[in-house]
């Protein structure tokens, strides 16, 4: 979506900048309408409207309808990746027998933080659980690690500790766990 946004915005901004450049040059008298007409035959377009208004108007409506539909698709695309924070929410785990166990998402977040914080080299962890539009849950952990820590080692330890088996014990159905690693900002002083 990022690339599509950039391409479409670049094309639209270039067209608007070009049109306003022509407007500026016309307004300051640097070029004449005749010179613009030589490049873009806008008078013929105006003439089309006067010669056969109904046909031209219908074609214009069709073109505008296409722009409108494409605009709606583009707008929908902006919200396709929207996620909902599960802060304060809770879920139920039903096992054999009567009743159900209710767990808050905050408890899962804290459990993940606790596991990550126990990994050597990790200074702190902050985890949030989100739901995608299709209902799939994912966790997002932001960690601060020591500068001497091996990033791959930390990643492997996180993946080995917070795995399907561990999540099943909590009854959590996380589909994915994304991790952002931040290096501690300043070099620790050596005594």
């Amino acid at each position, binding site marked *: 979506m990022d690339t599509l946004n*950039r391409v479409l915005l670049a094309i639209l901004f270039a067209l608007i900048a070009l049109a306003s450049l022509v407007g*500026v040059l016309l*307004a300051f008298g640097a070029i004449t309408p005749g010179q613009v007409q030589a490049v873009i035959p806008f008078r013929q377009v105006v003439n089309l409207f006067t010669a056969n208004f109904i046909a031209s108007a219908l074609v214009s409506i069709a073109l505008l309808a296409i722009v409108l539909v494409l605009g709606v698709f*583009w707008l929908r695309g902006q919200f396709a990746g929207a996620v909902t924070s599960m802060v304060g929410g809770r879920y139920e785990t039903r096992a054999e027998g009567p009743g159900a166990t209710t767990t808050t998402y905050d408890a899962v977040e804290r459990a993940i933080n606790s596991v990550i914080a126990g990994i050597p080299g990790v200074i702190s962890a902050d985890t949030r659980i989100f739901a995608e539009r299709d209902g799939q849950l994912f966790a997002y952990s932001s960690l601060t690690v020591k500068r001497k820590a091996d990033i791959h080692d930390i*990643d492997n330890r*996180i*993946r080995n500790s917070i795995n399907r088996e561990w999540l099943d014990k909590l009854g959590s159905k996380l589909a994915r766990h994304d*991790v952002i690693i931040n290096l501690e900002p300043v070099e620790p002083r050596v005594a």
Partner: protein
Amino acid sequence: MRVFNNVLATIVALALIAGSAIGILYLIGLLANAPALTQLVQGWFRAIGRLSLGEIQAILLGILVVFLALFISEVRPWRAQFITIRDDEKGRTEIRRADVERYLTQRLSRERAISTESLDLIVYDGKFDVTTGVSVSTEADRNKVRNQVESNVKSNLAAIGLDKELEHIDTRVQRTKRAA
């Protein structure tokens, strides 16, 4: 920038939808000979018609500058914010590029007789290049400086386990300081 672009794309998409819907209503109004539909849009054009030449010039110049700046911001290359360590069905692990740059800059600055002017990571497909700019004494040996910089960067990346992602190191040596 990505969030800004999402907001920008949302605004532009809404403008396209609103603009084309107004255009369609106006044309339907003309075809159906319904003045109620056409008067609103005509009102806006009347407002533009009342502007003086100076005002029109200023507005057009403003639009030109704003949209030229926006166009340049869209086409210039964007640097990746993260280095991807893992991306599979379990999830994605990333480290901030700026953090690694700051870490390497601080470590390189500890080297004797070298001043770090710049250090940039260019990230692509999970790999990255390091571009450094250092200033040294006029008497310093260029090859020795280059080896010193490369060794420093490689060993510090190895210390945090990121040496496998390194592709190239480019070193730019400036001779700006005199030997004491």
